[in-house]
């Protein structure tokens, strides 16, 4: 065996910088995904014809690989006169992709809230939008949180696919160093450890968020 992990130290600043880009892609992609996912979920449970648009979007995106979607956005769209930077393509791809899954997570959470909650708020004169914002969504979020967390972690790791559309994120950077130093084991291990670190922190943040949101079930005041 000729493993030498000390080589990592020399390149660590670059790896960390690349990990920073990974975080940036994941955060923006997920934020975009939450936005699309919310809209798609609300459309899907609405009784308007727009629900078919949501159905189609979810069907299309969940049924095709993220890598193909990224290729279509980055390499395909320029043929139609739409040229996006690698960064914009990545965020767009991650957002559209995670949005389809998040839509179903949000829909599940919203539909899990008993109809009595809506009846109670309607009876108090609250309109549809106010009921959704103040009564249904906060409860749905608590139910959906574990699945949301799951999708966030998946999206964080999926950002590695952006390496193939020229993004110098963590995986691509590791790949480059691995080939120039002939030390693939060391660099891919380093990449794996950094991904693990990021997903661990993300999980911890999500857990603490879940804990805070569940306070009404813990405060036994009597």
């Amino acid at each position, binding site marked *: 065996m000729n493993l030498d992990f000390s080589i990592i130290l020399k390149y660590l600043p670059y790896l960390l910088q690349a990990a920073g880009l990974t975080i940036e892609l994941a955060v923006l992609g997920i934020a975009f995904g939450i936005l699309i996912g919310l809209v798609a979920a609300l459309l899907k449970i609405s009784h308007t014809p727009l629900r078919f648009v949501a159905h189609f979007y979810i069907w299309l995106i969940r049924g095709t690989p993220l890598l193909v979607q990224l290729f279509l956005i980055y390499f395909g769209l320029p043929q139609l006169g739409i040229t996006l930077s690698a960064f914009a393509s990545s965020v767009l791809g991650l957002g559209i992709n995670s949005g389809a899954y998040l839509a179903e997570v949000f829909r599940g959470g919203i539909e899990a809230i*008993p109809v*009595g*909650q809506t*009846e*109670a*708020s*309607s*009876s*108090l*004169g*609250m*309109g*549809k939008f*106010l009921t959704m914002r*103040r*009564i249904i969504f*906060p*409860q749905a979020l*608590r139910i959906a949180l574990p699945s949301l967390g799951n999708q966030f972690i998946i999206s964080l790791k999926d950002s590695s696919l952006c390496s193939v559309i020229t993004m110098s994120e963590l995986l691509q950077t590791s790949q480059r160093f691995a080939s120039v130093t002939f030390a693939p084991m060391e660099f891919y291990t380093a990449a794996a450890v950094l991904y693990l670190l990021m997903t661990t922190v993300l999980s911890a943040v999500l857990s603490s968020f879940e804990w805070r949101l569940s*306070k*009404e*079930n813990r*405060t*036994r*005041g*009597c």
Partner: protein
Amino acid sequence: MELAYKPEKSMINVNGLIKDFGKTRVINGIDATVSAGEVVVLIGASGSGKSTFLRCLNGLETLTAGEILIDSVPLENKSSSLKQIRRQVGMVFQQFNLFPHLTVLENIIEAPIHVLKQEKVNAIQVAEELLSKVGLYDKRDNYPATLSGGQGQRVAIARALAMHPKIMLFDEPTSALDPELVGEVLTVMKQLAEDGMTMVVVTHEMAFAREVADRVIFIDEGRIVEEGLPVQIFGNPQEKRTKAFLSRLNH
């Protein structure tokens, strides 16, 4: 005809109400009037349509035919009309339907702040007075999950009252409660009746109906079969179906 009876202001007018669920006719032509300050108790077997009738009164069910006037304003199936009517008609449910993610106080001030646009301090003041009235001031910062059924239902009543409704509807408010908790809810309702609130109550608590109701309406198969003073309905029912229903209750 009681000519000596002074005509009172009517709060609820129901004319020719019909309600279908799919092909099933649940309400089959109901006409009714409820005067201001009157306490009307609806009785009937489960599936008789009494809860559906109640839910029509604040637009939770859309009408198939007929009309409902709340304080002379017709209830229309569009959101602006429904919102307007519902501010004036409080509703208390069998399952309380408190908002579990909000504290007792937050449950009560939610609609006054966001619907009536009251200042938060004013809303809190009203909520605290209502909580004192239903005997739950010390539970103001509790979450609903920590309350007993009787406490939960009293909070639900306070929540509805915070909107200063002209009418209160009660849909089997004690049916989900343990027997020993029924009394505390009925006491609050009795107090409300004494304060002059217009109330329509669906209940199986015949003792409450006897004591508090100004009028009892017996509903069967989506129609009003018989109505009258509690002493008439319970003491001397005229219709066969009323007699059969009441005798089943006594067994």
